[in-house]
């Protein structure tokens, strides 16, 4: 049978089989499994059919728990049903998984296994999630490579139908789910040959039907539950046999043979390691290498982990084994060992006890942990484990791949040991997200994988930032199948697509001697060498690297490619590497261009063709001198004045050397210092704003909207400017309350992302040149050194006092409040962060923030550096992230603590009445804290109280008072008003967290909820939420969302006692400020829904605020405030703060690709959606108008 080879990743491989073998698919996004749902949704939107010729019904749910419930229901009514998930998502499915297994239901869940959030969240791969689900009664089959993912997706589906035991089909998140690999695609005939239609019909027949009614899901009592629980045993006992039978059947079809436990290695091995997942691929390669060198080693690749068949394991092991090492990619603190270790111990001990084991003597069994959160697992580490196993007393419960200098679990190994094959091309590409490097490399893999007999593998490492992100592509090509699930550390080709990386990263560290280096350099060929930093020159000479250079940005500009150098660098790679003959390579690149971009129009194809054709003339070999003469040295990663933690820990992560940090360097409980982004000068903007004080009207709008808090202003006295550096600009302050002061506005050019929102929002035009404003973009590089000096001086200038002279209730005054959220890794032009920053300005020095998982938790809390910071008094927001689904409850818990502690503190003041002056006690208890002055006064009282109590405590008070004094000292700070904020996106508030949010709002306590509404799950790549508007294309709504956006605000208003505001900074910034102040001042629950333009809208981000305005002007996003306090005054609580819609909806939506895409792909549907959406908006507006006008 002829099958095609395809170059795909693990997620696509799993989704391909799942879509072919199911009727209903319930989905929900979670990294790294989201692409499986996206593929399924897209294929169904394209009416692709399963093997029975019908298109699977794909349904997004509100949470993984909801997906599991929907799956359970669909299964119980007889549909072939599946879902995809990972990590916390799998944990949310566990309750249903018990039910599904208990009811002996055939299904397969496909899991891209991922770490669980513990001391910190991690999106990367390990087995923590599936191990947490291992007791639910599901069979678990582990696939180790992309090919195995495709194969096992089918084997599990076939097995579950026969066994009636549900299966988790597990593969490693990212390492396998995102690894692009050339694999053989199963045909429909293959799939049908494995799936027994009679078993499908049996599954259907077990479904609930009123025509043959049964009851399933009883409540059972002590008399029968236990026995009933044991009824399933025969089914579990049968599973290993069934799986092996399906594997054998599959081998007959495909030629790929699998066993429940596959042994690889010496027949007389004395040391064998046992593991599962992608690490087994590397272990197999390493074992083969070591055996060839005479080592007696082997590896058992565990396929079927549950039900665990000890008999099959023992049968797979050579009798000669002396030491067994079980490797777990998970951690179970407090256990006697990790799960696989325990299973191996049990199986061997039982085998020995029953005489079923092949060993003459009980082998020594050790267990170890490796690869948590996609930590590298290399041949060197595997050899290190085998070396340890040689020792008379090998370490048990070890770790490998880290330096545990606290409890000394880690094994030593030689990091220079490697087994890369000579005939393999190993290429590393350093790029920026924006330059298209990864996309081009994915194309290259496809070209080589599908157009040549070579095997190809690609794996991509991304940055932790969303703007200016670095990418490193690891590509291997060769004549033999590739089983190397680890990064390339000995590259024979290194491409550096960004010249600036040479100063920041050791990009040539992994280049092997004699390797070829391709550099994108913005210089003529004869100037390239001198432009290299000295350490780079030294490495090139020492390793005898071959250097080529091209000014790719110039070629891109000349061919209309803008900043995308993807096809240019790709052409260079093929030209230099010789993987294909040049002409053939260029023809294939063009073919790939047409395939990728053809449907986007001829013009796009042509500009890419032009770029390819123009490339080779600009590619030059660079002659190497015999010594490094450059005067350029690498700058320090962080400045010398950074605090010790930043110097010793953060800087290592920033330099890409976080793997070298020992255990002792890291906080034990996930607690990190704030304010660390200030030490990471990323310099990612090509242009940064320049202030023109003569034109400026000091309105503060640019300061307000700057997403990264790089534009700030201060008002100071002349004396403060005495030592101002040259060129430091100021102007007379335009506040009538502040005569004789100077105003200055400064830009942190090194932290700017160049988004230009500031320029767009600036209302002041230069009267001599109306195209220029009070703030204008200019090239960043020339501003850099002076900007650094100006910024340092500016930061040291005194801040305007919060409680003296001005009321911070308008945009102009708010600009003077120091932001306590700065330089985040959010996208350039982010629509969320201006609101977050405003929160930090208004309330940050007394705020506690519960942040739902999502964009805001990532740009707010992703290491290495975090943006929440402190003011000069050391106060600032205290921030934490619990989960995605529970954020309202999490923040509510914080409120409960504050309420309880406040109550106790006030009680203590009364109880310690003899020690505290009555006037101080009375003032503390009755403090008015509705404004900054009141808060400052209360802070002073608390300081006085603490000082007084401290003195009393030292004066040896009566024993019964001592604990009361100590308690009040520990609680006194809560007497200053705290501001609890519950922050998250629409995925949380509208979907997964809605139940909790609703409950928290209903309780009436003083919490402030800020919903950053981007109308999609932005962080996971733009999946539809219930906030997604009708007619917008999003992932999971590939054909356009057919239903209107949920009206969250109105639902909250129904309680009558919840403050609700809908705001859009770009539509009315003064309204936004007012709403924030009102919400915070309301002594009850408050909800602010903030329009947040987003990269997932497909807009020019510099025009985001304009889009917000259009949203308001069309009536799509009416601004309003619902203030329950007004009711007490006999007023309507609802104030509609926007005028009548004056533009048609089309004037707003068709600026956005999310709508235009549908117009271009399915204009009839787009037109229908537009009409429906316009009608819905009209009705929505009328409703609000009526509500606001009621007496």
């Amino acid at each position: 049978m002829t099958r095609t080879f395809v170059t795909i990743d693990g997620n696509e491989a799993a989704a391909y089989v799942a879509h072919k073998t199911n009727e209903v698919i319930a989905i929900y996004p979670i990294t790294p499994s989201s692409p499986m749902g996206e593929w399924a949704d897209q294929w169904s939107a394209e009416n692709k059919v399963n093997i029975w010729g019908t298109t699977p019904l794909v349904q997004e749910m509100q949470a993984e728990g909801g997906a599991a419930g929907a799956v359970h229901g669909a299964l119980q009514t007889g549909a072939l049903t599946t879902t995809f998930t990972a990590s916390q998502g799998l944990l949310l499915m566990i309750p249903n998984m018990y039910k599904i297994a208990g009811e002996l239901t055939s299904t397969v869940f496909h899991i891209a296994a991922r770490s669980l959030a513990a001391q910190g969240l991690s999106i990367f791969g390990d087995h923590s999630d599936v191990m947490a689900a291992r007791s639910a009664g599901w069979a678990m089959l582990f696939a180790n490579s992309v090919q195995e993912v495709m194969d096992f997706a089918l084997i599990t589906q076939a097995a579950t139908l026969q066994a009636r035991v549900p299966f988790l089909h597990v593969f490693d998140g990212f390492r396998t789910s995102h690894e692009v690999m050339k694999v053989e695609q199963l045909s429909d005939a293959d799939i049908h040959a494995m799936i027994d239609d009679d078993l499908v019909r049996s599954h259907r027949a077990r479904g609930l039907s009123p025509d043959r009614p049964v009851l399933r899901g009883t409540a059972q009592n002590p008399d029968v539950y236990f026995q009933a629980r044991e009824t399933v045993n025969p089914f579990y006992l049968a599973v290993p046999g069934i799986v092996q039978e399906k594997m054998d059947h599959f081998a007959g079809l495909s030629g790929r043979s699998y066993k429940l436990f596959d042994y690889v290695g010496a027949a007389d091995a004395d040391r064998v390691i046992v593991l599962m997942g992608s690490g087994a691929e590397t272990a197999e390669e390493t074992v083969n290498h070591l055996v060839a060198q005479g080592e007696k080693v082997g590896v058992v690749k565990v396929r079927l982990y549950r039900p665990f068949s000890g008999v099959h394991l023992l049968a797979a092991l050579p009798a000669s084994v002396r030491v067994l090492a079980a490797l777990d990619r998970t951690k179970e603190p407090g256990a006697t060992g990790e799960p696989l270790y325990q299973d191996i111990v049990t199986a061997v001990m039982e085998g020995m006890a029953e005489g079923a084991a092949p060993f003459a003597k009980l082998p020594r069994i050790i267990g170890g942990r490796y690869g948590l959160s996609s930590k590298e697992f290399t041949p060197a580490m595997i050899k290190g484990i085998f070396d340890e196993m040689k020792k008379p007393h090998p370490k048990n419960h070890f770790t490998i791949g880290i330096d545990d200098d606290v409890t000394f679990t880690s094994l030593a190994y030689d990091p220079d040991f490697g087994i890369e094959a000579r005939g393999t091309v190993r290429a590393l590409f350093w790029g920026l997200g924006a330059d298209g490097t990864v996309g081009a490399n994915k194309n290259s893999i496809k070209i080589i994988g599908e157009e040549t007999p070579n095997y190809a593998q690609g794996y991509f490492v991304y940055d932790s930032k969303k703007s200016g992100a670095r990418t490193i592509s690891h590509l291997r090509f060769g004549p033999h199948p590739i089983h190397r699930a680890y990064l390339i550390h000995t590259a024979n080709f290194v491409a550096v697509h960004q010249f600036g990386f040479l100063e920041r990263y050791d990009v040539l560290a992994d280049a092997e001697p004699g390797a070829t280096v391709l550099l994108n350099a913005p210089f003529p060929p004869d100037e390239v060498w001198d432009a290299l930093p000295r350490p780079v020159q030294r490495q090139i000479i020492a390793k005898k690297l071959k250097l080529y250079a091209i000014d790719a940005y110039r070629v891109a500009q000349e061919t209309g490619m803008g900043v995308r150098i993807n096809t240019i660098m790709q052409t260079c790679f093929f030209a230099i590497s010789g993987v294909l003959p040049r002409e053939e390579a260029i023809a294939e690149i063009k073919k790939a261009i047409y395939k990728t971009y053809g449907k986007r129009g001829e013009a796009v194809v042509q500009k890419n063709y032009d770029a390819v054709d123009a490339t080779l003339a600009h590619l030059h070999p660079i002659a190497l001198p015999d010594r490094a003469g450059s005067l350029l040295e690498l700058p320090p990663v962080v400045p010398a004045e950074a605090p010790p933690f930043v110097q010793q820990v953060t800087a290592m992560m920033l330099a890409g050397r976080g793997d070298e940090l020992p255990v002792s360097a890291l906080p034990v409980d996930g607690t990190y210092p704030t304010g660390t982004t200030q030490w990471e000068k990323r310099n990612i903007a090509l242009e940064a704003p320049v202030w023109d004080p003569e034109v400026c009207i000091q309105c503060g709008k640019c300061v307000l909207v700057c997403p990264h808090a790089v534009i700030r202003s201060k008002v100071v006295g002349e004396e403060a400017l005495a030592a101002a550096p040259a060129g430091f600009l100021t102007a007379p302050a335009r506040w009538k309350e502040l005569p004789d002061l100077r105003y200055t506005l400064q830009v942190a050019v090194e932290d700017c992302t160049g988004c230009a929102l500031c320029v767009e929002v600036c209302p002041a035009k230069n009267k001599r040149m109306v195209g220029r404003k009070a703030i204008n973009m200019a090239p960043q590089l020339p501003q850099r050194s002076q900007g650094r000096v100006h910024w340092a001086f500016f930061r040291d200038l005194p801040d305007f006092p919060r409680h003296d002279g001005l009321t911070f209730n308008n945009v102009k005054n708010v600009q003077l409040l120091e932001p306590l959220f700065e330089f985040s890794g959010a996208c350039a032009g982010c629509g969320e962060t201006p609101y977050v920053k405003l929160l930090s300005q208004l309330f940050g020095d007394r705020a506690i923030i519960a942040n739902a998982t999502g964009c805001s938790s990532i740009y707010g809390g992703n290491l290495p550096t975090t943006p929440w910071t402190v003011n000069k008094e050391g106060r600032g927001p205290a921030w934490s992230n619990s989960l995605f689904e529970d954020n309202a409850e999490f923040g509510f818990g914080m409120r409960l603590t504050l309420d309880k502690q406040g109550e106790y503190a006030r009680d203590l003041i009364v109880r310690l009445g003899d020690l505290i002056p009555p006037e101080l006690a009375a003032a503390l208890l009755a403090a008015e804290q509705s404004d900054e002055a009141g808060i400052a006064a209360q802070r002073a009282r608390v300081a006085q109280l603490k000082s007084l109590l401290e003195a009393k405590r030292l004066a040896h008070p009566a024993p019964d008072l001592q604990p009361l004094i100590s308690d009040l000292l520990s609680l006194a700070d809560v007497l200053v008003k705290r501001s609890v904020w519950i922050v998250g996106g629409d995925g949380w508030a509208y979907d997964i967290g809605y139940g909790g949010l609703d409950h928290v709002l209903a309780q009436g306590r003083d919490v402030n909820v800020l919903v950053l509404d981007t109308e999609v799950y932005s962080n996971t790549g733009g999946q539809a939420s219930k906030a997604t508007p009708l007619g917008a294309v999003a992932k999971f709504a590939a054909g356009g969302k057919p239903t209107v956006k949920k009206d969250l605000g109105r639902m909250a208003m129904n309680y009558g006692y919840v403050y609700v505001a809908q705001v859009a900074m770009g539509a009315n910034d003064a309204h936004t400020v007012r709403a924030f102040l009102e919400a915070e001042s309301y002594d009850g629950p408050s909800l602010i829904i903030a329009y947040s333009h987003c990269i997932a809208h497909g807009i020019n981000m510099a025009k985001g605020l304009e889009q917000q305005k259009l949203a308001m002007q069309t009536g799509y996003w009416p601004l309003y405030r619902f203030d329950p306090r007004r009711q007490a005054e006999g007023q309507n609580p609802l104030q509609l703060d926007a005028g009548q819609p004056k533009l048609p909806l089309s004037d707003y939506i068709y600026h956005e690709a999310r709508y235009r895409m549908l117009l271009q792909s399915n204009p009839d549907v787009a037109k229908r959606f537009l009409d429906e959406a316009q009608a819905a908006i009209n009705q929505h507006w009328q409703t609000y108008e009526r509500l606001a006008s009621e007496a």
Partner: protein
Amino acid sequence: MTDLTTTYMGMTLKNPIVPSASPLSYTLAGMRQLEDAGAAAVVMHSLFEEQILQESHHLDHYLHYGIESYAEALNYFPEQSSYSIGPDEYLNLIAAAQRALDIPIIASLNGVSSGGWVKYAQYIEQAGADGLELNIYYIPTDPAMTGAAVEEMYVNVVRDVRQSISIPLAVKISPYFSATANICYRLAAHGANALVLFNRFYQPDFDLEQLEVAPHLVLSTPFAMRVALRWVAILYGRVQADYAITNGVRSSVDVLKAIMAGANVAMMASELLEHGLRRIGEIEQEMRAWMEAHEYESVQMMRGSMSQQHVAEPAAFERANYMKVLRSWRPDPAGVLF
């Protein structure tokens, strides 16, 4: 019975009233309404090459923007199976109109590149248009560009397109040429079957409050027609081509003037946009009434009757007329000069 038939681009039309390129022809339904209202032919709204290019580049940009940067969000949109980018929608409309309408369909092409003109002209011919109007809208802002170079560009475009298609070809140009007669002659010599005089340049306005250049559409006025009226009258009989007068045709009198100057058809859009399609029928009736009253048997009889060649005072179209007009000025009776 007064005969209103005329010929244009080799086609016989039932009257000389042709709706020019405008939003009225955006849809098949719109074109049907024009036919039902009495239009003799339809010039479709323009296919703008840069619009196609822009759509293509924008789609590509936004599908690329921000992708492959962050591990959790490797892209932001589901790829659609196909996009209707390019001239497909326009071409489909031509084909549909051709099937549904009895009157001739003249497509309109507004291009920016030499290759684009030829390629899209061929597409339009293949889609079944009865004729093609090239709308050459070019503002030569480069101080280094000579008038000769501009003219050469126009001529080359017309020549290339003429060589690539066989359907009748009209060329719509602006009035801003140093030697209008010469350029018209050259365009006709290189294959233009008809000349459409003149293109409207939508002049930008200034918004003094916002300090912005504020382009906005102003409907044409009858006065605007006089430039074309003069040039058609001058060119009629001298440069062998059909003529259409456009820009400022608002009434039956305007249509009659156009024909008398030498135009084969008068094109209108502003009048229809402002007062509705019924104006076509009204103008036709008014023309008939006027012609009957003035004993004109046919449009053919009337055509060119007031062209420069046929008027008693040819200098009226030249400098002499200019002086006469200037001298005719009299102050306002109230004594107010401005």
